[in-house]
């Protein structure tokens, strides 16, 4: 049976890192950068390439909040909910985003357009409330600015 795209990608990325088991997290980032998530079929392929057990790779994937076990929406909006942003009213904005998108943090809108995620600190603690839209940092968020971001994402 031909290897899936996930398996091929996993092995290619692992090779780029010299199949070093200590580079597992770098490799998982690499796989997610290509595929947008870490499919389950990538795990045995990585275990084989790095000479680890499936369990070990699975343990690392599930430990780290960064690695997606299913594809994300077209856009990913991360909103910081740590103390400094709380002090600037991020919770009200999170509620607004959840209500606009019809999901709670961690979920993807029904139309698959936006995945809303909590993040704990982006290092923009004097520019809060802050967030990240598709990897682009945004600070001094307000309700209008949040609405603009959501509109941009087609939500």
């Amino acid at each position, binding site marked *: 049976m031909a290897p899936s795209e996930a398996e091929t990608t996993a092995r290619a990325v692992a090779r780029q890192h010299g199949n070093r088991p200590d580079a597992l997290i770098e490799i998982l980032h690499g796989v997610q950068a290509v595929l947008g998530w870490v499919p*389950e079929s990538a*795990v*045995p392929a990585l*275990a084989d390439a790095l*000479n*680890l*057990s*499936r*369990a*070990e790779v*699975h*343990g690392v994937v*599930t*430990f780290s909040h960064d690695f997606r076990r299913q594809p994300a929406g077209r856009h990913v909006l991360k909103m910081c909910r740590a103390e400094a942003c709380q002090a600037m009213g991020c919770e009200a904005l999170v509620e607004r985003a959840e209500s606009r998108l019809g999901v709670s943090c961690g979920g993807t809108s029904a139309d698959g357009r936006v995945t809303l995620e909590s993040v704990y600190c982006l290092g923009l603690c004097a520019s809060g409330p802050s967030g990240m839209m598709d990897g682009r940092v945004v600070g001094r968020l307000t309700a209008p600015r949040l609405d603009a971001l959501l509109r941009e994402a087609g939500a």
Partner: protein
Amino acid sequence: MTTLVKEPDFGTPASKMEKTVTLTIDGTKVAVPEGTSIMRAAMEMGTAIPKLCATDSIEAFGSCRLCLVEIQGRAGTPASCTTPVAEGLVVHTQTPRLAQIRRGVMELYISDHPLDCLTCAANGDCELQDMAGAVGLRDVRYGYEGANHVFAKQNGKANAEWMPKDESNPYFTYDPSKCIVCNRCVRACEEVQGTFALTISGRGFDSRVSPGMSESFLDSECVSCGACVQACPTATLTEKAVIEIGQPEHSVVTTCAYCGVGCSFKAEMRGEEVVRMVPYKDGKANRGHSCVKGRFAWGYATHTERILKPMLRDKITDPWRETTWEEAIGRVATEFKRIQYQYGKDAVGGITSSRCTNEETFLVQKLIRAGFGVNNVDTCARVCHSPTGYGLKTAFGTSAGTQDFDSIEHTDVVMIIGANPTDGHPVFASRMKKRLRQGAKLIVLDPRRIDMVRSPHIQADHHLPLTPGTNVAVLTAWRTSSPPRASSTRRSCASVATGRTSRSGPRSCRDRSTRPRSPPSIPASIQPRCAAPLASMQPAATPPSTTA
């Protein structure tokens, strides 16, 4: 009077260091080797510091936080399992402060644990129960309405944290609702067995033991060695037999008959019924570990198809007829005598098995020699080990193994020739893998790509997949290249083994004559283990014939 044999659990492995350290624990002076944990030192003097995540077959982990102690002159409350002894330390294992913390920890544990002790398989053999008792837990003030892994449904909704029992493995059950995430199973699978089949999935409160990729045990990489079940302090991983029968009440120490390792087991019984087989820590061959065979696959002893009465038939086409022992033994004796009379004494012989114990082998040869009056007795080891027996006897004076299993712990290079230890001698394979993970080198001479060539965390430094039938040529080439340099040895071995030499063809592989050479120097490390005096040792003058 036989009772259940319960070996003391010292909490952490014994230290191999030589210097002795003296410290005071609870007012008593105790002397232990340097590198011993405070927990073990206390246990050796009879004080069992409360613990859940520590067990002496695996390295200390420091996660349960029950074994905290107070050390004079040091701030805080360090864990006694991860703190090594030091000269002159003054340690207190029980103080009001420690008691309060321990009770706090147990309260947290029990707040996320089923309260069905009386109907639980581990009732009477549960370390969590023991610890709740040991610390004087009286109350779980958190209540039971909070997040937990216990209830499948909560407030009318499905509980996302709950996982159903995994009964896929025929021998044991995994019940995640009872797991205290002590990690003992994961660590046992890593350190003792070396399969790495288990991990913890998720993190924080979500943490649960996961075989493979959160698969069932049977689908995962698990090989059912039972190390995790043995290590588990609760009923989370329990033998199905214990669930069905109940707790055993006495043990019989015995030896497993499945392979040449000869693991020591405690057959834990209830009356005449074997409840389970648990590896015996004092077993010199297995040191408390086991494989699926001896641990679980003893069902044949009580299998419904097991023949329990002697049976006779006159012709191979006749059906079997049950009979008495007297008639059966009488018939066999008479017939053997007839055969000897009719065809001569030497028409009868006997073969014992390398899976028999030494005692059983002794009896077989006694029967042949004294009973049948002939010397036609041998062991099946002759088939495999005729050449090695000859070589060992010639080189070292005896054809028995030259060293004990414990010696693997000091090995620098392991060479496996024509063996597949992972399947054939699993317990020893695990011990080898442990040493290999510590940095010992591995050479595999086998046409097969055996498991030891590449498996999680193990990679042979050299795999020489010789052509079947060229063992002797390879080994001779090896022996005659001096000093052995890996690359040239590999070349010469490879070229000889595949028969692809430029000058001579396959004939050279069969050329058995070699000039006698001066004896190679015997490495000092094995000299004391050699049975015969050095003077009697000579190298094999000619390679032994392969026709037995």
